[in-house]
């Protein structure tokens, strides 16, 4: 339906400063029509500022914002056609669920009969039809956020912005509501930009992820891409636990990693200069120290387990290496118990684990 060539959102050189703090330092970003885009970053990275500039709640110091090909950066929020869902719901407390959802339609001066119909449709979409006459304080957190979603979608916005919408909910509710938002997205087809600091949420929700750090976009790509091929140490570390180990490139597409005492094959390019090797904890293997004699004896590096973080299906060991470095090693536990406890003498094995090299 929407023209694929025109991005739903195009942000160019967007900058915003609060006193001495540069919240955004010239961000360029295009979000494709109909996609679920996720802005991921730690607090203070500028992701909420970016969202507020797109919504028009604040003015940018420099740069432009286009929504569906239309310049909007000089327009007030009410003329941008952007729906927003906030972390703390921001429902109107003195209005019923139906009145909340109908508010945007009343602002559009939609005729009453059509409005009632549209509100009913929106409430059905988020499965809250039977709560239309309740007030927000009579709803649970998850229900409130679904009302907020229905309210933002009712005026049929060109773009839907979700500002940490699940952060106030407990884990199980968060996952079910996230799945529900994906369902709603499939039915409505609106372009969604989700802001979050939760990498798991970003990876599982988005078609593409943009990682923000200190007001700059560090990397934009599909979840698999940013996970497997992080563009920087920061992205590698922020997207999940990662061992970043000093390395020396060797001829033949290999790199020698001192901490592992091994030469590993390199996936992707080798940047010039000093590099670190990225090795995911799940790529490494622990064995009891002294085991694995003979031909493979050289592959293990000794250390002591500092902590074993059991997580049901897996366990993550923090290992203090004899060299002083700390190493994370994750082992899948289809069943059974973690093989090592804190204090165990172990050897870290890394036979032919492919690594990525990043500038140090």
């Amino acid at each position: 339906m929407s023209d694929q060539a025109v991005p739903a959102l195009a942000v160019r050189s967007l900058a915003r400063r609060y006193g001495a703090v540069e919240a955004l330092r010239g961000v360029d970003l295009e979000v494709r029509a109909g996609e679920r885009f996720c802005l991921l970053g730690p607090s203070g990275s500028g992701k909420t500022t970016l969202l507020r500039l797109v919504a028009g709640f604040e003015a940018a110091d420099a740069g432009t914002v286009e929504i569906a090909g239309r310049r909007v950066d000089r327009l007030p929020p009410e003329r941008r056609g952007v729906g927003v869902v906030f972390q703390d719901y921001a429902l109107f407390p003195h209005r019923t669920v139906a009145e909340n959802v109908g508010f945007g339609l009343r602002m559009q001066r939609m005729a009453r009969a059509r409005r009632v119909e549209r509100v009913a449709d929106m409430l059905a979409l988020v499965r809250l039809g039977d709560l239309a006459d309740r007030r927000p304080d009579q709803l649970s957190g998850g229900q409130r956020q679904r009302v907020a979603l229905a309210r933002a979608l009712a005026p049929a916005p060109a773009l839907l912005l979700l500002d940490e919408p699940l952060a106030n909910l407990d884990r199980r509710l968060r996952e079910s509501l996230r799945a529900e938002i994906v369902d709603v997205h499939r039915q409505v087809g609106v372009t969604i930009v989700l802001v979050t600091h939760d990498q798991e949420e970003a990876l599982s929700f988005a078609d593409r992820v943009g990682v923000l750090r200190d007001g700059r976009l560090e990397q934009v790509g599909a979840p698999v891409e940013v996970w497997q091929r992080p563009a920087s140490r920061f992205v590698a570390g922020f997207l999940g636990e990662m061992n970043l180990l000093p390395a020396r490139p060797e001829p033949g597409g290999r790199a020698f990693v001192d901490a592992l005492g091994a030469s590993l094959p390199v996936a992707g390019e080798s940047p010039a200069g000093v590099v670190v090797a990225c090795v995911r904890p799940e790529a490494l293997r622990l064995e009891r120290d002294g085991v694995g004699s003979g031909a493979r004896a050289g592959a293990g590096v000794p250390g002591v387990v500092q902590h074993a973080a059991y997580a049901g299906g897996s366990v993550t060991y923090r290992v203090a290496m004899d060299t002083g470095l700390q190493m994370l090693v994750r082992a899948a536990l289809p069943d059974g118990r973690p093989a090592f406890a804190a204090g165990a003498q172990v050897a870290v094995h890394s036979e032919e684990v492919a690594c990525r090299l990043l500038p140090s």
Partner: protein
Amino acid sequence: MQAAAELTPGAPGAAAAARRAVAGRGLLLVAPALLFVVVLFLVPFLAVARISVAGPAVPGSRTFFDLSVLAPGNLPALAADPLFRSVLGVTLRLGLVTTVVCMAVAVPFAAYVHRARGWWKTVLVAAIILPKLVNLLVLLYGVLLILGNRGFLNQGLQGLGLVDRPLPLFGNLFAVVFTEVLVVLPYPLLVLLAAFSAADARQFDAARSLGAGPVRAYLETVIRPAWPAAGGAALITAVWGFGAFVGPLVLGNPPYYTVAVEVYTRALERLEWVDAAGWALLGVLAFGAVVALPALVVRRRRS
């Protein structure tokens, strides 16, 4: 919850005991206020009620009333007294007009202060509170300096040649309402300001993104949720308005004397304590009825 209940079979009884303990401690919290109300309001009020139906002073006695007599007829007689009725009417009208004017001034002004930022906001809040630090009489004579026949206002108007003789700016309803508003305004202002400050800025943003302009969004997310507080502010204003005393005495003249002024003259100038107590009692009952009426209507509508 369910698991906890299963683990502790005695929970309901224990919970009830805990609730009772908390309620007992709650009582402890209200004790100072309760003591205050009983000693400083309830006891004197009952004393006034008793005096209002006492007999007139016995000649040669050292009291202004005779408690050995019970004269319940005093109150119906007073209620039928045309002077009492007219003064009560003036007082109620003054209180209501003061309330309407105060709220009409306070809502927009509180909204302005709420939206102000930085040092200017500090100045505005100080401007609301500072007049309360000035003695009431000083404030009223200050008003006379402005509104009097040789006050700033009249001298200015005459100097500009706009009027030939001083306008009668005091000794009338305008002057009395003006002073009462001046005296009472800080209370509704502070109540409204607190209520507006409780507004959630995200709701304002949400309203904007849903198509509301800044004014509409402000009404929806700041003013509208503050309605209950505005009711409270109006109540405080009305209670002050009904109790108006010094303002009408200094800036009004006999047609604008209130119940409080009449009680004062009867009790402390003419020493007619029985009469004064009757005025006070019926006045309080009438104000109570007027104030309770809207509250009852609101409650009826909610349920």
